[in-house]
């Protein structure tokens, strides 16, 4: 699971109001290189919830992202860090935790299991 995907996920348990972001508990993280595409990154900058990305990256061991995203001009050194955090960090084993209910969604072999139990629907 990469942070580009984590940024989209919410907790869909019935009754939960504070659905996102899900906190990451990382047990195994691997890095996989991906081609750098600055146009795509600039496009994504507007859509990403920044704090969730920074916190998510920190949980996976990457602390280089600035606390605030830059304004209009995003230079290459920043984009490289953004690229690495968004697309190259892979959570292989761990959990995604709903901040409100505490429910843990396990992540195994890179795949988060978001299936709900009967009572949660």
């Amino acid at each position, binding site marked *: 699971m*990469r942070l*580009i*995907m984590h940024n*989209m996920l919410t*907790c869909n348990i019935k009754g939960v109001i504070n659905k996102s972001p899900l906190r990451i508990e990382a047990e195994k993280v691997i890095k996989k290189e991906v081609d750098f595409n600055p*146009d795509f990154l600039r496009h994504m900058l507007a859509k990403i919830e920044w704090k969730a990305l920074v916190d998510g990256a920190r949980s996976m061991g990457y602390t280089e992202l600035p606390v605030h995203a830059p304004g209009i001009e995003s230079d290459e050194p920043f984009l490289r860090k953004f690229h690495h955090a968004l697309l190259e960090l892979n959570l292989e084993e761990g959990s995604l935790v709903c901040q409100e209910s505490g429910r843990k969604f396990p992540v195994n072999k890179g*795949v988060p*299991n978001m*299936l709900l139990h009967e009572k949660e629907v």
Partner: protein
Amino acid sequence: MKLKQLEGFLGDLQQFSNPKVELEQYPTGPHIASRMLFTAENSYGDITDKVVADFGCGCGTLSAAAALLDASCVIGFDVDPQSLETATLNAEELEVEIDFVQCDVTKLELKGQVVDTVVMNPPFGTRKKGADMEFLSAAMKVASRAVYSLHKTSTREHIKRAALRDFNAKSAEVICELRYDLPKLYKFHKRKEVDIAVDLWRFEPRQN
């Protein structure tokens, strides 16, 4: 990439080893899958450099096609862990990056219209009534550019009405009619092969 090349790559993918009838698990053949994604990109620009979600990805055929056509991010969603394992292997074989999520797509909640394009070959609703409509509804909630989906031609009027009236579609067009070859997969199938008329739809969601 040329269409024939794409079709070739997709033909090499591993498919369901033990398909589950209650989930309507049928492989999306390379012929349909390649044409679907090729059209989405060449006629509408909906795949290359876009975030693409594959709802009910199964063994990942449509996801793989999106990745091969240079989507910048591909995410496959499915309820069945065995299919997801096969899909993961397929992605590794092709050396493409695809993220996978195990979930019930009809219960999934994402943060709004966060993907560009959804591509899917959803269940037709022969086992779980209304499944095709539930998948379409779910897809329309998360796509900002387009949803590409296959539905039986016999449901055409019903789908169009529901999409425009209930699922927030700005437009709903049948791009082409295809014959979907279903080989004899399950014991209850009497004929060796049957083909079903299906429509390839393109839905454009309204922006929320």
